[in-house]
């Protein structure tokens, strides 16, 4: 009986989360992560990693709630454990503030974060341009630590890792039986998905160890996220912008906007700058299909298009993808799979 050979394309947070879920749940499958880039060179590595949900227009609310809750609970458990520093996951409390009172004061994810409540007037005094705010505790997941930690967990579960650029799924048809596509923006080519587009984000890492709370403007463009060794300040949301180079105008704009929320940032030393392209799509694509590759019919499970919410819902979508892989295996005859 042949082992089913599963390949996971992509070694970012979605790729490795999905690979770990599959390798741990299906020990009789052989699982390989195949990617051109690994930590610290993935999109995930630059992300601040604050768990914070968005709302996708076409995904049923129940599924989105499950994505967020499963991911949050998974990250929280690690944050509360001895693994917290190694995995790069910590608790983070703070405020999301709005210049205008939002239509929905209590978003769907308010149940899943910790201690969610409306800010008091006393708390809002510090933000004179803002009229409403939410206070809560969430988790911050730093992928430059989390990805290596996931990789170790993946290898312990028998997973293999290979560094290689894949230009087309055709290249994989002989070596694998199930393809799990977590290639983010790469899906534009690999899945021929024209609806995938970059949303450029620039961030600065500054040295400001006196900052312990996150502050995020509800418009999603200005945020301050204190991490373990530096504070990530940002950002930008430039749709369709493929530029990976740091833009000086963006740097100045970020520092100005963030300093107006947090004056002490004026004294902070800038340690580094980074640009990433959020692998965006109207909705994340978590579904399966079959493709014809060089005479073979291969099942493909897609898990991409998470935009700026990769860290936030990676684990939940990975569990969904695992479910889809199980379905693929059920439909395969004559092979050891489970």
């Amino acid at each position: 009986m042949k082992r089913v050979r599963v390949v996971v394309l992509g070694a970012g947070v979605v790729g490795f989360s999905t690979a770990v879920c599959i390798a741990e749940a299906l020990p009789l499958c052989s699982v390989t992560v195949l990617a051109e880039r690994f930590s610290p060179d993935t999109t995930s590595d630059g992300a601040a990693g604050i768990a914070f949900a968005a709302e996708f227009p076409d995904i049923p609310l129940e599924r989105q709630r499950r994505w967020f809750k499963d991911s949050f609970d998974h990250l929280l458990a690690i944050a509360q454990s001895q693994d917290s520093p190694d995995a790069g996951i910590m608790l983070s409390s703070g405020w999301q503030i709005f210049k205008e009172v939002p239509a929905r004061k209590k978003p769907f994810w308010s149940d899943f974060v910790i201690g969610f409540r409306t800010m008091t007037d006393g708390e809002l005094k510090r933000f004179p341009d803002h009229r409403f705010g939410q206070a809560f505790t969430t988790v911050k997941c730093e992928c430059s630590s989390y990805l290596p930690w996931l990789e170790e967990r993946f290898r312990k579960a028998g997973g293999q890792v290979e560094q290689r650029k894949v230009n087309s799924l055709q290249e994989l048809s002989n070596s694998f039986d199930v393809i799990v596509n977590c290639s983010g923006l790469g899906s534009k080519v690999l899945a021929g998905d024209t609806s995938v587009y970059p949303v450029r984000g620039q961030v600065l890492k500054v040295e400001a160890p006196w900052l312990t709370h996150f502050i995020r403007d509800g418009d999603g463009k200005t945020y301050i996220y204190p991490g373990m060794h530096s504070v990530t300040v940002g950002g930008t949301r430039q749709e369709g912008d493929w530029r990976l180079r740091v833009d000086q105008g963006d740097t100045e704009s970020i520092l100005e906007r963030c300093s107006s929320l947090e004056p002490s940032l004026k004294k902070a030393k800038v340690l580094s700058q980074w640009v990433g392209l959020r692998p965006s799509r109207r909705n994340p694509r978590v579904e399966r299909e079959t493709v014809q590759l060089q005479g073979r019919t291969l099942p493909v499970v897609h898990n991409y298009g998470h935009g700026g919410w990769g860290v936030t819902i990676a684990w939940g979508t990975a569990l969904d993808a695992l479910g889809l892989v199980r379905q693929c295996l059920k439909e395969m005859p004559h092979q050891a799979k489970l």
Partner: protein
Amino acid sequence: MRVAVIGAGVIGLSTAQSIYEQYHSTVSPLTIEVYADCFTPLTTSDGAAGFWQPYLYDKGNTQETKWNKETFDYLLNWLKSPEAVKMGIFLQSGYNLCTDPLPEPSFKDIVLGFRRLTERELQMFPGYTYGWFNTALMVEGKTYLPWLTNWLKERGVRFYHRKIKSFKELSDAGADVIINCTGIRSGELQPDPDLKPGRGQIVKVDAPWLKHWIITHNTKVGVYNSPYIIPGSRLVTVGGVFQLGNWSEQNNSTDHENIWENACQLEPSLKHARIVEDWAGLRPVRSKVRLERETIRSGASAIEVIHNYGHGGYGLTIHRGCAEEAARLFGQIVVQQGRRPKARL
């Protein structure tokens, strides 16, 4: 007028500041001198975690609650300025954990966003069934004291590294008013049976993933005798003990073991933290802060003393309120001695 402040911890320095702020333009000349045998970073204020939080209950001592509030509001106001970083002031949120339900603390309306802990939060801390979450302030002594020192020096306040043996010594040298901010060693200048050391020991560790303070309360063992974890801007302070009557400033390995074991139970990730150093200090404990005037007769003359000591484990928490009050008392002396060029009421 010559003012001699004895003590260069947070109480001494902030009192000198308040006196200068309130009187330098109306009392001329105003000479302020600070005398101490110990300066930052070696004072009790330097060793403390620098966390603003009074004891849970003021036991009717509403005066102290008022001074605590004044201090909190004063520090909070500084946050608007980039200067706050140089002062060692920043916000930090966290958890007050109790083994049993307790009445709400005296500071609930002073801090920001005070609320009860949710079930989910309590599950994060097994063994604790009740508690509160709020945002409070940090004011780190090792940064704040140098800032205060600079502030005073820039305004002509002189510092003298000397142990003062008596109030008379300073009075004889020409001081008109003596401010006694000698903390735990006030008894050496004037016996005070109410003043006792509340020995504390802490472990400072490198654990930058911790961004919340966690203070536990156990009514059976008393304040500061149960674990607390207070992240600072560079290191995390882990405690604690509160040993009344113990004068030892040496680190004790049994205390270290107990503190460390309890803290790791509270926060398992600490097991990976690098231990940097231990420190032991003596909280200047008293039934209440001694903040009052005393006129000491010495032969034919009178020595005007303002006492400002006995702030226990909440010196940083209460310092500004007390400093302002001490300055007010100083103002009374100024008026009494007819030293005011213009009456300003």
